C-alpha cells in the first residue's frame, strides 16, 4: 500500500459511459433521456471513435428492398452466422429492435441512401438472406457516429436552455482514459481516469458504469482496428471481477489490404462483394465455389452463372459463395495463399473492375476507390485489389444479461457493443455490429439509468482504492535500470498473437503463446517511460499493455481449451465442428486475489452450459438444418 494520499478531483454523476463509439453514445443518449446525469469518457476526440470505420451498413429487417424480410429471418441468419452459439435471446432482441433503432436515427437527422420510392435503401451482405443493410455509400459508420454526436449536441443545447450549462446533464470527457472501475464492496462506485493531454488524474463517482470500449484488435499484428482497440473494457471488467465469455472467437475479416506494408490490414468493405465483386486466385479462378461447407450447401450457387443471375433475380437463384459468412471466406483465402495460388503480395484478387462500370464503382464504393487510389496507387475501376484476412472483431466479451446488458456478478456494471459477449456467437455477420451497438447501447443506457435511480444510497470511493490506482498508473515512470520499451513489448505481443493464436490455430502453438505471454507479463512489469505525464504516448501504451496482455491470455487460454473449429475459432488439429461443444460456453474468470508474480496465470477458465434455445425460436428452422448444429439431447 502506498504511503501517500493522492489528491484528485472527484465528480458525481449518475451514469458513466466508458467509450464514445456507437454503443457508448447510444447508451449516453438513453441514460440522459431517462433523467440520469451522464458522463461519457473516451480516449479520442468526441466523434472520432472506431465506429467511423464501419463501412457497409446497419442490418435491420425493414423489408424496404425485399418485402419477404422480417425479424425472424434476420434472427435465423444471425444464429447460422454464429453457428448457433449466440446468446439466443440477444439475437432475438437484436433482430426485433434493429428497425426501430435505424428509423430513430432518421428523426435525429441521419441521411441514408434511398430506394426509388423514397425509403431507406438496403444492400446485400454476407450471410444475410435478403438485402438488409441500411447504408450511406460505404461510410455508414461515419453517418452513425455523426448522427449520435449531433443528437448529443442537441440534448446539450436543450440542457443549456434550461440550466445555462451545456454540460449539466450530459458531458463528454474527451481524450481521457479509464484505468480502473472502482468499487464499494461488491458494487460499482466509479472510475479512475486520467487526461491524456495533461496526465492529470481524476475520479468519476457513479452507481452505474457502462463499458462500451469496443474490441481487442491491437493485440494482433495485422488488424483493421485503430490504436484505441486495446481491450480496455474487457480488462476493466475482469479487474472488477466480471467474467468474459467465449474469448476464443476472434473474427478475421477476409478482405484487408495487403500492400503496401504500412497499410496492411486496413479494411476493404464487404460491400465490394455484396455489390458484385468476386474473389479470384492467381489462376484466375473464382475459388470460393470450392469452399462451400456442408451446412451451407443448399443455400449457395453451384455455378458462376447462377451466382451472377442472383444479383438480378434473387428469388429464383442462389447467392454466390463470395457472400458466405466471413469466417468461411477468410479460411478459404488463407488456404488458397498457402496452396501457392495467392497474389504477388500474399493475398488473393478481389475484382469489381470487370463487374460494373467505373462510374457505378465510384458512386457505390467511393471510399474504397479513394483508399486504394491514395494509399496503394491502385485504380479499382480498372484493376483488381489484392486482399487478405485481417483481425477485425472479437465476438467474445463481457458476459451480460440479455435483457439489461448488466455484467454478470458486478452490480452496477453494464456492457454494450463489441466489448459485450454472446450476441454474435462464434462469428458475427457483417452489418450486425452497427445494429448491435444501437440495440444494446440503448438497453445498457436504459438499465444503467434505472439502476442508478434505484440505488438507495450512493456508493462511496475509498481513498485507498484511489491511491492504489494512482500508484499503478505511475509505475512506468519509476522503472528500475533495464526498463523495457513499451513499443517493443507491444510489437512482440502482436507478433505472438498473430503467429500463434491467429486465424488457424494448433495446440502446441497456443501453449507456446501462453508461455510467451507469461514472459511478456514479467517484462511488462518493468516497462518504463521517459518524460512527463503530458500527452506522453509511451506512457499511455505502457498502461494499455496491461489490458492487452490480460485479454490475450483469455483468447489463448479459451482457444486452447475448445477442441473443435467453429466460426472465428479454427483449429488445424480439430478441424470439424463438434455438436458436443455447441452448448458449451467458456468463461474467463480473474484469479483472485491477483497473483504477485507477474508470470503466474491471471485467468481461470470455467465451462458452463448455455441456456436451451426457446422452442418457438427453434421452430423457425428446418429439422434437417438443426441436426447439423445441435446435439442429440438438445433436439
Amino acid at each position, binding site marked *: 500500500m502506498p504511503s501517500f494520499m493522492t489528491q484528485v478531483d472527484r465528480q458525481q454523476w449518475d451514469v458513466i459511459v466508458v467509450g464514445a463509439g456507437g454503443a457508448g453514445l447510444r447508451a449516453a443518449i438513453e441514460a440522459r433521456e431517462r433523467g440520469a446525469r451522464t458522463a461519457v469518457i473516451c480516449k479520442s476526440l468526441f466523434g472520432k471513435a472506431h465506429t467511423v470505420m464501419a463501412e457497409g451498413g446497419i442490418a435491420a429487417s425493414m423489408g424496404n428492398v425485399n418485402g419477404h424480410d422480417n425479424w425472424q429471418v434476420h434472427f435465423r441468419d444471425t444464429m447460422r452466422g454464429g453457428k448457433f452459439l449466440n446468446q439466443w435471446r440477444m439475437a432475438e432482441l437484436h433482430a426485433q429492435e434493429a428497425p426501430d433503432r435505424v428509423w430513430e436515427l*432518421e428523426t435525429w437527422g441521419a441521411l441514408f441512401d434511398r430506394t426509388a420510392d423514397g*425509403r431507406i435503401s438496403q444492400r446485400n451482405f454476407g450471410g444475410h438472406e435478403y438485402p438488409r443493410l441500411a447504408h450511406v455509400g460505404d461510410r455508414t459508420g461515419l453517418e452513425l457516429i*455523426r448522427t449520435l454526436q449531433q443528437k448529443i449536441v442537441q440534448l446539450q443545447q436543450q440542457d443549456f436552455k434550461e440550466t445555462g450549462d*451545456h454540460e449539466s446533464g450530459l458531458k463528454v470527457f474527451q481524450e481521457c482514459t479509464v484505468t480502473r472501475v472502482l468499487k464499494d464492496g461488491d458494487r460499482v462506485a466509479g472510475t479512475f481516469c486520467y487526461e491524456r493531454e495533461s496526465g492529470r488524474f481524476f475520479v468519476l463517482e457513479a452507481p452505474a458504469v457502462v463499458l462500451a470500449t469496443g474490441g481487442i484488435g491491437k493485440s494482433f499484428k495485422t488488424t483493421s482496428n485503430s490504436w484505441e482497440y486495446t481491450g480496455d473494457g474487457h480488462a476493466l471488467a475482469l479487474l472488477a471481477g466480471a467474467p468474459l465469455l467465449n474469448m476464443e472467437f476472434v473474427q478475421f475479416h477476409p478482405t484487408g489490404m495487403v500492400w*503496401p506494408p*504500412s497499410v496492411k490490414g486496413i479494411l476493404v468493405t464487404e460491400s465490394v462483394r455484396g455489390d458484385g465483386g468476386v474473389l479470384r486466385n492467381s489462376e484466375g479462378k473464382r475459388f470460393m465455389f470450392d469452399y462451400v461447407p456442408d451446412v451451407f450447401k443448399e443455400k449457395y450457387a453451384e455455378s458462376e452463372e447462377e451466382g451472377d443471375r442472383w444479383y438480378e433475380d434473387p428469388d429464383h437463384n442462389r447467392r454466390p459463395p463470395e457472400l458466405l459468412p466471413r469466417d468461411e471466406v477468410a479460411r478459404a483465402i488463407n488456404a488458397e495463399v498457402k496452396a501457392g495460388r495467392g497474389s504477388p503480395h500474399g493475398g488473393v484478387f478481389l475484382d469489381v473492375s470487370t463487374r460494373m462500370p467505373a462510374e457505378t464503382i465510384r458512386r457505390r464504393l467511393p471510399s474504397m476507390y479513394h483508399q486504394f487510389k491514395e494509399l496503394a496507387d491502385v485504380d479499382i475501376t480498372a484493376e483488381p485489389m489484392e486482399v487478405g484476412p485481417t483481425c477485425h472483431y472479437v465476438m467474445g466479451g463481457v458476459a451480460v444479461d440479455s435483457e439489461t446488458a448488466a455484467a454478470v456478478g458486478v452490480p452496477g456494471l453494464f456492457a454494450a457493443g463489441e466489448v459485450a459477449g454472446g450476441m454474435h456467437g462464434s462469428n458475427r455477420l457483417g452489418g450486425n455490429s452497427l445494429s448491435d451497438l444501437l440495440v444494446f447501447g440503448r438497453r445498457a443506457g436504459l438499465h444503467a439509468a434505472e439502476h442508478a435511480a434505484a440505488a438507495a444510497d450512493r456508493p462511496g470511493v475509498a481513498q485507498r482504492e484511489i491511491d492504489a490506482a494512482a500508484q499503478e498508473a505511475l509505475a512506468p515512470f519509476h522503472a528500475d535500470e533495464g526498463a523495457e520499451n513499451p513499443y517493443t513489448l507491444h510489437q512482440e505481443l502482436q507478433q505472438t498473437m498473430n503467429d500463434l493464436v491467429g486465424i488457424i490455430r494448433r495446440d502446441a502453438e497456443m501453449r507456446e503463446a501462453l508461455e510467451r505471454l507469461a514472459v511478456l507479463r514479467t517484462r511488462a512489469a518493468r516497462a518504463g*517511460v521517459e518524460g512527463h505525464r*503530458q500527452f506522453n*504516448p509511451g506512457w499511455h501504451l505502457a498502461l494499455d499493455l496491461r489490458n492487452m496482455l490480460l485479454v490475450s491470455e483469455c483468447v489463448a487460454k479459451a482457444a486452447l481449451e475448445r477442441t473443435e473449429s467453429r466460426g472465428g475459432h479454427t483449429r488445424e488439429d480439430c478441424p470439424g465442428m463438434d455438436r458436443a461443444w455447441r452448448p458449451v460456453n467458456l468463461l474467463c474468470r480473474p484469479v483472485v486475489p491477483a497473483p504477485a508474480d507477474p508470470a503466474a496465470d491471471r485467468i481461470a477458465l470455467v465451462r458452463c452450459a448455455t441456456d436451451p434455445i426457446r422452442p418457438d425460436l427453434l421452430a423457425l428452422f428446418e429439422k434437417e438444418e438443426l441436426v447439423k448444429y445441435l446435439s442429440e439431447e438438445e433436439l
Partner: protein
Amino acid sequence: MTSYDASFRVWRGDPEGGELRDFTVEVHDGEVVLDIIHRLQATQAPDLAVRWNCKAGKCGSCSAEINGRPRLMCMTRMSVFDRTDTITVTPLRAFPVVRDLVTDVGFNYEKARSIPAFVPPPGVAAGEYRMQQIDVDRSQEFRKCIECFLCQDTCHVVRDHEDNKPSFAGPRFLMRIAELDMHPLDAAASEGLDRKRTAQDDHGLGYCNITKCCTEVCPEGIHITDNALIPLKERAADRKYDPLVWLGNKIGRRRDG
C-alpha cells in the same frame, strides 16, 4: 522493398514555446507521413505527442501542416516527396498548441454547439420518412465531412485573425448549416428558425470571400465553397434583399420561403 533515410523537421514544444527539431529517419516503400512520425516515437522520441486514430483517412484526427500545407498525415504518402527533400511537420496554425503536433481544437466543438440541431418534421413518425435520393445527394455530400478541421485551419478569416473567431463559425460549420438547410425534411422554419439568416447574422457567412482555400484542402473532396457556401450566400442574400420575402415576413406569410 527499398528503404532510405529521410530528413524530417518536426515542431516540438508546448504553449510556452518550441522549435523545429531535425531527425533522420528510415522510410520504407508505400509509407505515409504518419508512419514516419510513429517510427520517430518508437525509436527516437518516445514522448512525441501526435493525435491519430484510424490511420485510414476516415476519422480526421491526424491533421497537421506538412511543408506548410494542412493535410492528414495518414493520407500523405512519402512518395509524393523527393527523397532528398526535408519534410517539415508542424501543428495546425489556427489552433492553440497543446504539445508538439497536438492542438486544442475546442473552437470547433464550441461552434458545433452553437448551430441548432435538425428539427424533425412534426407529425411524421419514425419509419415514415420519405425522401428521394436526388434530394438528399447534396446534404449527403456535406455529411461526408470527417471533421479533420483542415478547412477551419486554412481559412484566412481565422488563420491569422484570432479576433474573428467569436463571430465566424468557419467553413465546416457554415457547411453544416447548409446541410441542414438543404435537408428535405428539416422543419426549422416551423419553429421560426431561418437557417440562412443565422448563417449570415450569427455565424459570419459574410466574412467568406470565396477564395476556395477550404475546398482545396478537404481530404474528402467536398466542394465546400461551390456547393455549400456560395448557395448559402445566394439564399441568404435572396432573403435579405428580396422585397417579396421582406413583405412576406412583414405580413407573416411565406415564412419558409
